[in-house]
């Protein structure tokens, strides 16, 4: 009897959240999946077309190019963010002069609104008065200004650079938090035993912050896979679709061509890897509390 009461109370307490989740997540998601099986365009009723959208996409070379670009963009960006984030955390963990000032400065890219940083980078990349071309010209590394956003390879490099610049602080702060928990005595003992800096890093630091680094890297991977603003504002997926990623393709098809069904099909196709990554993060982060 008491158990039933407790159950009812539990369901009662849970119900607002449950209703919220159904209304905000489950219903729109289910509807979205349904629309991806239709020829829905804005302003016209949806007609069920089965797997047509998915078949069209899988036969479209642009879609596969977009998938490749997304993977390349994500993989390269996450690797560099992790490496530089680690370096940043190690430096900021040392007892250096003006450490707090450096910490604030290095975290700035993460706090600046994307729109501001992207416009700043647009200026940096510009061939008229752009600081990057100016420095390279002064250093005689180039003979004339480079169009950083004008060829597919350079544009991809440029958007990755901006993403890495924005993402390093998150990795840095996450790893730094892990580093702060390591006891100093352990390092002092290792030093007395003759372990050099490299050995201490490989055998003590790295294993100690492995968990937090992996978690932060996976979270960054999820965000990078979904990145839209940096690419849209810098290149709109060009030139020649050289920086077209899944999010920009979906936006273009959904909003400019008004083909909602196909745009959602693209989004749905990106769901499985994202679900796996989210599952990984939640399992890892919640397992210790079970």
């Amino acid at each position, binding site marked *: 009897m008491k158990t039933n009461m407790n159950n009812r109370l539990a369901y009662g307490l849970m119900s607002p959240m449950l209703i919220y989740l159904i209304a905000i997540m489950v*219903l*729109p998601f289910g*509807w*979205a999946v349904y*629309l991806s099986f239709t020829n829905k*365009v*804005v*302003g*016209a009723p949806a007609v069920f077309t089965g797997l047509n959208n998915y078949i069209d996409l899988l036969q479209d070379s642009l879609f596969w190019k977009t998938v490749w670009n997304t993977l390349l963009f994500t993989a390269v960006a996450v690797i560099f963010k992790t490496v530089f984030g680690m370096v940043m955390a190690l430096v900021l963990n040392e007892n250096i002069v003006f450490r707090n000032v450096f910490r604030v400065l290095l975290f700035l890219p993460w706090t600046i*609104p994307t*729109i501001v940083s*992207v*416009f700043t980078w647009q200026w940096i*990349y*510009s*061939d*008229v*008065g752009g600081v990057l071309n100016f420095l390279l010209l002064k250093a005689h590394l180039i003979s*004339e*200004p*480079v*169009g*950083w*956003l*004008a*060829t*597919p390879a350079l*544009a991809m490099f440029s958007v990755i650079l901006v993403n890495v610049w924005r993402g390093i602080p998150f990795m840095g702060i996450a790893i730094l938090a892990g580093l702060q928990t390591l006891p100093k005595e352990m390092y002092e003992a290792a030093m007395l035993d003759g372990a050099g800096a490299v050995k201490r890093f490989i055998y003590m630091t790295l294993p100690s912050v492995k968990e937090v680094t992996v978690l932060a890297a996976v979270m960054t991977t999820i965000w990078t896979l*979904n990145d*839209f*603003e940096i690419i*849209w*504002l810098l*290149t*709109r*997926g*060009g*030139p*020649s*679709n050289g920086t077209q990623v899944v*999010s920009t393709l*979906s*936006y273009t098809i*959904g*909003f*400019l*061509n*008004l083909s*909602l069904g196909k*745009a*959602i099909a693209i*989004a749905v196709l990106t769901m499985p890897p994202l679900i796996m990554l989210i599952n990984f993060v939640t399992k890892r982060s919640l397992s210790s509390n079970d």
Partner: protein
Amino acid sequence: MMNKWISRSVSAALLAALAAGCSNAANNGIGEAGSASGSGSKPTLTVWMKKQLFEEQNSLITERAKQFGTDNDVNVNIEVIAYEDFYPKWSAAIESNTVPDVSFFGYQEVGQFYGKNVLEDVSDLVAKVESANGDIQPSLKKAVTFQDKQYAVPFWTESQVLYYRKDLLQNAGFTEPPKTWDEFREMAKKLTDPGKGVYGAGIGYGRGNSDAEFLTRGIIWSFGGSVDTQDGTTVIANSPETVAAAKYIRDIFLTDKSTPPSALGWDDSGNNKAYLSGQAAMIFNAGSVLATIKKDNPDLYEKTGIAPFPAGPKGTFIPGISNNLGIFKDAKNKELAKKFIEYMVAADWYKTWIETGAPLTGPIYGKLASEPVWQEEKNKAFAESVKGFYFLGYPGEYNTKAGEVYNLRIVNDTFQKLLLEPNYTPESAVKDLSAKIEEVYNK
């Protein structure tokens, strides 16, 4: 009924979520609520207006809308919105059946939404406006006419013209701007001096660049080619004339190297910046550049000459830009909306508004085009260009498929590829271009 409501609500939520997830620059502080006055039982008219370059024009529009509210005892909720934000807003509004009563539309969108059967026939309103204020320029009316009916009321026009640096041309031995595309190429080559960071042709092909979409069509048309149809169904893009135009553009970029190194990554502001910074000696643009330099750089203003588009073997073809006010079929206050549009294009107030934005915003009425402001040396080409406007779909009539070809930036993408890949020939590019356009027309 309930199902319909649920599906609409969920669709709107999805669109809103998609828009939020893909939120971009344009959402940051650009969209701005104008006025939402009063309450009570008065009807509320919702108006979506495109944000203008000149703040004074935005203020005039907002004040005029308020005045309409006062005069007609209605609430007017006017939102001044950046162009990039319109598509997500239109999409969400159509799906959730919460469309504004009056909305701005470029003529491409009028065609696109006419094709979706969501726009109100406003032929009666156009006739009323013309009888009260004089004739609307035929080329502008044509752009919003489908099966002899108008689906929007022209509000203002924008003309693309050739901007050239008089001083640089003179130094290079030229006394006049180019009259033909061949002269343009020759001058651009001679004006280019990479050592000084000066390039003759400020033409850009970044993805999404609408200037390039229009300019490329202008060149192709003047060579006798097309990227659409003659009869509305058979694509005639793959022709020797289109190939010749593609070769011409390729030569400017790859053979002569008369364009700045970053030009293939330019968005719509790319050529503006290149001209303002002195990097480009000649560009094609609407009146925004002239208005900016007149205000901020009088020296450059004096050095700037304005001329119509050069001519190709088949003559001069100026791609028209027409901006309009329209009413959705599902608008709640259609009669009030018509009254509002009529109020906004009343010639006495309209003349002040349009001239505030000169030469960027051009008048819809032929009689206003002969006002003194349009006779000024630098403004003349803008007003005169309107008569020679050609629209998407040429040589056929503008149609919804032509609008889709434009919106998908198929021309831009193909030319980007042509200019990026040395082994990609103009013949192959035009063949691919034609195939992609056919896909759209055959859907």
